[in-house]
């Protein structure tokens, strides 16, 4: 029964558009699922392999720009960006991994953060290829209705979910966890830590890049400040996992629901709309202090806290 749960949930989600939801709610659903894809990708590298990346916007942006440039410079459909971005992002991931994976812990985090910024500045300056700050506009939308976009991202999410599950339940997953728990011990047991960290980074990057390519197709406009954003992409990717649950299968999904809804709710409050980073920051601080493994990760602790609240 437990094995059927993901299938049941995917099936229920697939039925959602039949309810005839409005365009706004479809948009929210698509965002939630897109963020859970990015969250699952980040979780693979950060949650399981213990390599906290602050630069997932780099992969997201490269994926988005692959689609954008294919459309803008080569006149192809931006949907080709999805398959092509796999190759492009994997190459970027190998280069970034070669440079950053020699750093450990917090230094890796900052190294990847710097990579995200480098790519943003490069995209801003290479106006011949990326159009710089003007951004790239997809002038013909594939569908007006959001239903098909929803199904495409849902399929992507389902594939990601099963890929992550397969990887984590295989030998590879145990290697990742061993590296997270103690890299030196893992190395001394004969695990080629550099190789497996590179595998984790590349997988995570490719999935994030696919989400980026989807974003170009869905939103129809990208510029360096949007897709290489530090706070709105890289940090939100971390928050989706931190809030939802570190190293859990369902954590990113829970986190994505909370983050997207939180952002939307804050945006509707007049005057406080600009303050959504403050709320995100406070949420992050509270989660780290009280539920360091996220809502799904610390579910027992959360129950205990709630019970204590009732008792007193």
């Amino acid at each position, binding site marked *: 029964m437990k094995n059927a749960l993901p299938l049941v949930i995917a099936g229920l989600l697939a039925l959602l558009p039949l309810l005839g939801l409005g365009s706004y709610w479809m948009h929210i659903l698509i965002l939630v699922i897109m963020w859970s894809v990015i969250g699952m990708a980040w979780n693979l590298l*950060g*949650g399981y392999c*213990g390599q*906290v990346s*602050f630069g997932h916007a780099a992969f997201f942006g490269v994926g988005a720009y692959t689609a954008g440039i294919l459309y803008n410079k080569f006149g192809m459909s931006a949907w080709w960006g999805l398959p092509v971005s796999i190759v492009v992002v994997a190459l970027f991931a190998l280069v970034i991994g070669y*440079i*950053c994976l*020699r*750093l450990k*812990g*917090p*230094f890796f*985090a*900052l*190294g990847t*953060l*710097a990579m995200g*910024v*480098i790519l943003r*500045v*490069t995209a*801003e*300056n290479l106006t011949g290829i990326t159009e710089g700050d003007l951004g790239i506009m997809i002038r013909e939308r594939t569908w007006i209705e959001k239903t098909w976009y929803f199904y495409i991202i849902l399929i992507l999410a389902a594939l990601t979910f099963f890929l992550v599950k397969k990887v984590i339940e295989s030998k590879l997953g145990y290697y990742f966890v061993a590296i*997270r728990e103690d890299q030196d011990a893992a190395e001394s047991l004969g695990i080629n830590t550099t190789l497996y960290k590179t595998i984790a980074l590349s997988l995570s990057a490719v999935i994030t890049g696919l989400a980026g390519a989807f974003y170009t197709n869905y939103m129809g406009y990208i510029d360096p400040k949007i897709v290489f954003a*530090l*706070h709105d992409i890289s*940090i939100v990717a*971390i928050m989706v996992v*931190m809030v939802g649950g*570190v*190293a859990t299968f369902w954590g990113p999904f829970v986190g994505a629901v909370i983050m997207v809804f939180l952002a939307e709710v804050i945006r509707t409050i007049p005057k406080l709309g*600009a*303050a*959504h*980073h*403050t709320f*995100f*920051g*406070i949420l*992050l*601080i509270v989660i*780290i*202090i009280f539920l*360091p*493994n996220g809502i799904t*990760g610390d579910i027992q602790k959360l129950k205990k806290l709630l019970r204590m609240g009732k008792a007193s």
Partner: protein
Amino acid sequence: MTSSQLEVLLQTVISGLLLGGLYALIGIGMTLIMGVMKIINLAHGELMMVGMYIAYVLFSWFHIDPYLSILIAAPALFVLGILLQKFLINPVMKVDAIIPENQVILTVGIGMVLANLATITFSSDYKTTPVDYATKAWYLSDIWKASPIELSLSLPWSVSFCFALMITAALWFFLSRTDMGKSIRATAQDKDAALLMGVNVEKMRVITFGLGSAIVGAAGCLFIPIYYLYPDLGGQFTLIAFVITILGGLGSTVGAIVGGLILGVFESLTSTYAGMGWAPVGRFMIFIAALIFVPGGIISLFKKRKFGK
């Protein structure tokens, strides 16, 4: 090379050095915290931004010169740093979590809140403190009449550089000559040994975080006469501080000074010869090159020379 080209080159290098002195001050604050706490403070640039806003408010309300406002901004940042360390970072150091980088992510959260609160309070407009000496400059020919080449140096840049030197010297004196400074260095070298020698390690951590914040706050006051101010400026300077610490060697104060100067000169060179927009890329090229070729930082090169076989 003609003399005019030489002039441009010299001019670039010297303004790079002036910038580098200020960068060094930012880097020292970060490397101090990194050495003692073993965490990276990703809210470092945001703390500098807070310092700059303090200077801005003091200037626009009370017409206090930005250089004088160091005396107010640095203690204020010291208190802010102590509060952050005591009530947010210390509790998290004890929390057990799957991801070991919790404290770093926590500092990101702090930085986000600070930057966003600044946006709400001051709006995201660019602000400056229009001091009357902002555009003044002095020329090499003023001092040396017969000089074959002409250099012009901005007055506020030079003054800021001198202040940065003075603060660095004072810090050096504090760290090497006073009891508390020695305790801080002992904590950075070996926490357990320091604890056994009777150093109050917890207290040193709190003080170090306060000190690092105060230094970067002072750096903010030195920056504001020559720079503009907006709420999201912090992230950029956090990265600069981080690049400097990697370049100089982790936790090394001398490394931070050398790293800051190198970064300043290199950035100045890229913006003169490759265009202003590329200056940040030049910054990160140095960062990547340092990671690949001198992973221990510049300080490791010095050490190799000294203790070489």
